[in-house]
């Protein structure tokens, strides 16, 4: 495998994680366009730990993600009061705050960026990807997954059915920012060099695009959206310069003709039922 192809696959893995991070928050009907900020926190924290403090990669990754998810909690709390558009704006502001913070923060390089983190392999990246996919798969089938569905469908009714809506919403932010933090750490240690400009609003909006293109009803949609966006540029080499215009046009068309995205809940359920019949599992 060439270095170039490896790079594409590695970044695809990172994109899948980022898409899942947005999906996690979207599970409770909250839309975040600030996940690049959480990614940055994970990236810089883990990079600092490995490069400046000699801490091994795995613990550094986890610590980076824990810091990111702690900040996620702090963001999730005021987010409770914000609906729809206001939440989008708040997460936008948050993402930009983080980016401009790291632009000025000298201990991690400031405007010159941070050089040195390394150690991410394809295996490591995809271990995390598979891990989170399994996590979401289990979540989907569990009681907690049903609680999340209820909270997203109708938070008021969910609360009268005994579900603590606040807990679910904050937990979703924690989860999403944790995953984004892991993605950031893996990214930093793959690219060897990071700068604040890598974690901008454009990236946050692109991640949202992956999820909506793939289908925001299930986590598989996020995965599929990220995969498509990562692979498509390679397949469409011949329109390379106009690639972005193509994406833009396709997405605009998608929103018009198939707003639910490629993968719908119904599709997943029907496929799931076919699998069940195949393996004759006793399932409700």
């Amino acid at each position, binding site marked *: 495998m060439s270095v170039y192809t490896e790079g594409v696959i590695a970044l695809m893995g990172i994109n899948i994680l980022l898409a899942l991070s947005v999906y996690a928050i979207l599970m409770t009907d909250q839309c975040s366009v600030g996940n690049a900020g959480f990614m940055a926190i994970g990236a810089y924290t883990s990079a600092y730990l490995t490069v400046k403090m000699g801490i091994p990669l795995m613990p550094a990754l986890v610590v980076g993600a824990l810091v990111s998810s702690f900040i996620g909690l702090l963001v999730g709390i005021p987010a409770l009061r914000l609906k729809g558009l206001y939440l989008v704006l708040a997460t936008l502001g948050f993402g930009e705050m983080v980016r401009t913070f790291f632009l000025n923060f000298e201990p991690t390089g400031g405007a010159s960026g941070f050089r040195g983190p390394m150690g991410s392999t394809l295996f490591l990246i995809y271990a995390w990807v598979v891990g989170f996919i399994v996590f979401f798969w289990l979540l989907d089938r569990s009681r907690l997954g049903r609680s999340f569905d209820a909270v997203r469908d109708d938070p008021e*009714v969910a609360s009268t059915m005994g579900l603590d809506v606040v807990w679910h919403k904050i937990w979703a932010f924690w989860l999403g920012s944790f995953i984004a933090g892991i993605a950031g750490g893996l990214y930093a240690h793959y690219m060897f060099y990071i700068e604040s400009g890598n974690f901008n609003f454009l990236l946050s909006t692109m991640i949202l695009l992956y999820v909506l293109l793939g289908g925001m009803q299930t986590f598989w949609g996020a995965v599929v959206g990220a995969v498509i966006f990562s692979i498509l540029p390679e397949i469409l080499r011949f329109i390379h310069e106009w690639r972005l215009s193509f994406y833009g046009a396709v997405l605009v068309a998608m929103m018009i003709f198939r707003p639910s995205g490629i993968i719908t809940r119904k599709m997943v359920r029907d496929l799931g039922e076919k699998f069940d019949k195949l393996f004759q599992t006793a399932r409700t």
Partner: protein
Amino acid sequence: MLTIQNVSKHFGGLKALENVTIHLGSDKIYGLIGPNGAGKTSLFNLITGVLPVSKGSIQFEGKELNKLQPHEISRLGISRTYQNIRLFPSMTVLENVLVAQNIHTQWGLGSIFKVRRSDLKLLDQAEELLKQMGLWTKRKEMSTSLAYGEQRRLEIARALALKPKLLLLDEPAAGMNESETENLLQRIEEIRAQGKTILLIEHDMSVIMRICSYISVLNFGELIAQGTPEEIQTNEAVIEAYLGREEG
């Protein structure tokens, strides 16, 4: 069991409820009637904690409900259905009932990995509830694909899955024909026979008069009468409230 004491609810300048006092004992079916906009659903919203009380107090088995969150109140044993059916659209019939059982079990992160014996018992209970409501055969269908009457029954099944002591039903017979209504009445009576208290909002007078043992009447947010069906039927203020006012 439930004491609504001098409760008022204001929305800015708008008075939704004014100085309402109602006492509910256990094991009975209570009715709450009044013209449209009288404040009946608002009262439900106050009891379940969806909206805060402006004045007065609501106590359930001695506990003050006003400061509690809706999910805490439902855990105390109060559940409800909605005037315009609010099922969870992304879930199947069975899942709608199962999710309401989450409060009886461990539902946090751990639930992802373990399936305990108690969960199988919950599944049995859900099955029983759905069979009671005649919905077990449709358990795998999406909740919104059900017929209107079936959706209403599903909402009741879901509310019952919480194992409430007090069940609030908001116009459960709306849009039902004679036989469906008859069916519904039987089921409500069965629920009461299981030892639950029911507070029923209804416009269909025949339903109210038949199964309620005590009725409260609201008009413009105020309590204008309370009593047995016979007393209410002959109450002048009630008759005037219903006849003297345009339906709106």
